[in-house]
């Protein structure tokens, strides 16, 4: 389902020199598979997720999702592809502050298909336990509730792949497991492949597959950007 081939990425430093971050010969995730990616801070986990999502471009290599190589797509097509097929849950939730919980989900649908499906948005918010908080803005929601909205938003367009960048890092311990269960269950129900980046061993242990980025990345540890 997802195949990364010979991905290389380096960042330009202020002195003009290149700082290599990623050099991944191959990385695969199957349909509906749930895996966790671990690695120390700054080893390039977020950069890898950005490349998979098409937010960032690799310097070389291929990112294939099903039959599409997103590195060959023009930017506008890549944006549309991301909106329709890839969900993204951020560590800092990244909800749009001026929008209600429901609108945060609807806006993701708007960017993907142009016409939001209100019934699905409500159903998703109900599923994450926020049926009674749909008209609340992020500032009126608890941290845990905000992350639930972010999960509902990430699943709004029935993606094939969900990328979760340390989704429980900013949540108190009591709610971490709830969020984790919620993401995994909804992905399972919708047959969505899940790549979760985490620092937490407790979280990582619950996944059937755990990859260390350092193991698949040829760039020597040290100095990479996370």
């Amino acid at each position, binding site marked *: 389902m997802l195949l990364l081939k010979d991905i290389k990425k380096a960042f330009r430093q202020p002195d003009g020199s290149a700082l290599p971050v990623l050099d991944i010969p191959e990385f695969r995730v199957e349909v509906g598979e749930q895996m966790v990616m671990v690695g120390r801070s700054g080893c390039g986990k977020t950069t890898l997720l950005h490349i998979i999502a098409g937010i960032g471009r690799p310097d070389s290599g291929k990112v294939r999702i099903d039959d599409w190589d997103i590195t060959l797509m023009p930017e506008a097509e890549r944006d549309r592809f991301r909106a329709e097929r890839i969900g993204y849950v951020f560590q800092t939730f990244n909800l749009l502050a001026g929008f209600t919980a429901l609108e945060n989900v609807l806006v993701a649908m708007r*960017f993907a298909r142009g016409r939001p499906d209100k019934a699905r948005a409500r159903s998703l918010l109900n599923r994450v336990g926020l049926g009674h908080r749909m008209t609340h803005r992020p500032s009126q929601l608890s941290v845990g509730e905000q992350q639930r909205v972010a999960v509902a938003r990430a699943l709004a367009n029935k993606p094939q792949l969900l990328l979760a960048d340390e989704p429980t890092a900013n949540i108190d311990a009591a709610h971490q497991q709830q969020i984790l269960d919620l993401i995994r269950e909804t992905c399972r129900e919708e047959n969505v492949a899940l790549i979760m980046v985490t620092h937490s061993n407790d979280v990582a242990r619950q996944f059937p597959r755990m990859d260390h980025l350092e193991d698949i990345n040829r760039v020597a540890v040290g100095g990479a950007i996370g």
Partner: protein
Amino acid sequence: MSLWKVAWRSIQQRALVSTLTVLSMGLGVALVVAVLVVYSVVYQSFHRGGEGYDLIVGAKGGREQLVLNTVFYLSQPVGNIPYSFYDELKVGRRFSADVETAVPVCMGHTYQGFRVIGTVPEMFTELKYQGEKKYEFVQSEDADGKKVQGRNFKEDAPFEAVLGAVAASRTQLKIGETIRGIAGGSHTDKQPFTVVGVLAPTGTPVDHAVFVNMRGFQEMHHAEGEGHGEHADHDHEHNDQITAVLVCIYPDRAAAGRTDVVARTINDSRFAQAVVPARVIADLFEGVVGKLQWILLGMAVLTVIEAGIGIMVSIYNSMSDRRHEIAVMRALGASRFTVMMVILMESILLALMGGIMGLLLGHGAIWLCSPLIADWTGVVVGLLQFQWMELILIPGLIVLASAVGYLPAVAAYRTDVAKSLVTTP
């Protein structure tokens, strides 16, 4: 959820700055509306004065001065013309085929600031104003407080007077009361004029004048001359002078171009000139007020453009705070073009809200001032009296908003998603 709503939410999020920006735009647009409406009022006020007759015949001299004096009762008369000119125009064979009505006017001094005009009753029976409207006399209180129907002065009652609507309300003169001292100077009139009627408002300079029977007017001036030791032998030539004659040409003859023929014939004479008031007024208006209007309008438009730049500054300044939000939208799948459109829509919404507020403010203010305007100019301004130029205001604002929104929109377009996403909001 439409992109308009996305833009609207962004405006809501910055409520204070957005409100101030809209207010600034609103004031600019209100100024434009005010200039347009005031121009229209001045235009109507100017042009209405010259309606109702086709020619003014007066002494040789400046045609503008003749019109200003005869139509607007301003300035001093160019001079006088012999009464015989009026006779010739009214009953003479030379003009009988063309002239429908001729009404003489004699410009006098002022009474409490209102010009006194000696004329004949036909002034209010034969002449019309604003096209085909007839002069009417209103019911008003007499000296005892009783409602009395006013009337025109009579030909055979030389010391009767009629008041224009504004003159009546300002002087507080009532029907049956008398007017003295209209000859000017310290001399007291031997015979006062009695007010017999008050005209209904016309929205023309007639509202601002006092009309007296020309016979009494000339008798009084004659006596004035005597009082000052002039013309002690009752110089009848003095009586035979009038300031101007207002001439109506038969409509079919006017349509056949006879107005200019009559005017040329009169202009060929030694003592008199004939002018078409509508043309002189149009020239005066374009030459003086027209240019002023463009200057005022230009200044008002500059205010709107300045408010537009305010929108740009407001949105552009917010861009540094919003890069993260834009990056999130991009990460959710919004294209560069989409986020650019959101910013442009935000700019358009702010400008439109400012525009609507400006229209309401402008018309509201004019409406509140309408009694004052009606009092000064006789032109009644309604709340919904729009000018055609206002039709281009809204499309103009959309163009302006698109132009000023372009810079921040490009900034949004260029947002580096990966970089902005890792920045904490």
